């Protein structure tokens, strides 16, 4: 095998030059226009809320909580390498509501289970989000009778509804991605803000503050 030595060129040369610049800056050798140029090139300016939301959306901790048959699909999403939730930083499944911040309602919500779910939701720490997965959790689905709550949004604020009976894992993945957009502050998904209904969440005693909303995109 023939080994050849080539000069650094193009992008790699530029990277090397920036590395050297950073070294110089740390040593205090950069001054004046050079320092100005280096800072402008190497810093990314953002609002604190945006950075915070970016971190939040890439570190969702889902609650390991299944209600019915949709839970099988949910387990496929949160537990299988095929779907690989780690891509979204959401692979850390927590089995206690105290450490989780995403509740996936995977299945039908019976009238007897509703207060339990509400309690689990209350136990989760802010900021927290809820995905209503499948037809049953969203609207009682095929079980339109005395036993079920027709739509979990009667007792919980829901962020994303995933249709399907049950939804395919891909659909839930898409729902999680939509939730990420919402956490980042996409104005199209903040229905509470859209309808100016922040602070209307039901709660015991004092109302529960809505998840932090950056206001990003309001000007557009």
């Amino acid at each position, binding site marked *: 095998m023939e080994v050849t030595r080539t000069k650094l060129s193009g992008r790699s040369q530029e990277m090397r030059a920036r590395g050297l610049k950073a070294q110089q800056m740390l040593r205090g050798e950069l001054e004046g226009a050079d320092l100005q140029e280096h800072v402008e090139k190497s810093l990314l300016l953002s609002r604190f809320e945006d950075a915070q939301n970016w971190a939040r959306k890439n570190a969702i901790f889902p609650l390991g909580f299944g209600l019915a048959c949709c839970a099988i699909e949910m387990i496929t999403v949160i537990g299988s390498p095929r779907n690989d939730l780690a891509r979204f930083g959401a692979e850390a499944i927590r089995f206690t509501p105290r450490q989780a911040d995403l509740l996936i309602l995977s299945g039908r919500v019976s*009238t*007897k289970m509703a207060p339990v779910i509400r309690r689990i939701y209350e136990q989760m720490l802010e900021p927290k989000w809820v995905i209503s997965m499948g037809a049953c959790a969203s609207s*009682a689905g095929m*079980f*339109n*009778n*005395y*036993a*079920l709550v*027709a739509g979990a949004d009667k007792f919980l604020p829901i962020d994303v509804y995933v249709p399907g009976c049950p939804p395919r894992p891909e659909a839930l993945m898409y729902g999680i991605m939509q939730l990420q957009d919402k956490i980042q502050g996409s104005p199209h998904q903040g229905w509470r803000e859209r309808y100016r209904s922040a602070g209307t969440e039901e709660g015991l005693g004092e109302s529960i503050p809505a998840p932090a909303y950056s206001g990003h995109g309001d000007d557009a």
Partner: protein
Amino acid sequence: MPDATGLELVAQRVRSAVNDDAVVDTLHAHGQATLQVAPASVHEVLSHLRDDDEEPYEFLASLHGCDYLPEEPRLGVHYQLLSMDRCERLNVKTRLTVEEPQLHSVVDLYPTAHAQEREVYDFFGVEFMGHPDLRRILMPEDYVGHPQRRDFPMGGEPVIFTFNEHELPRWYD
């Protein structure tokens, strides 16, 4: 399964052991033997069938309720007995009215009836006298009514499809 003749023999033995009015009817269909008994003597009949009969049934496989609306008496309670030794099954049925839905509990004979009687109470409103802990088991404790009765409203919400959206305009308002 006792055959039709065997069922008549069982009925005869029950009648002589308990009383003549205990067995209301016998039915043998689709290979299944059914003994219909008067509600007042259910406990005695099951006690006899478990302990004293010459062909005993020591196992209660299932206990469940039923609503036969519009027939009267409406409510039915079915006991499905099984003999593990002889591999024979026997159904014991009783019928109750909605006005007087009281029945003697069989928990003292068959402990497995504990949860199943609670279920029948929950869904059909049959009151089992002598049950140690007769509470609702599946519906919430404060639920009103017995939802598996046939005259109980279905509940739920009307669903708007394209074919009925004009019949139910804005029902949710």
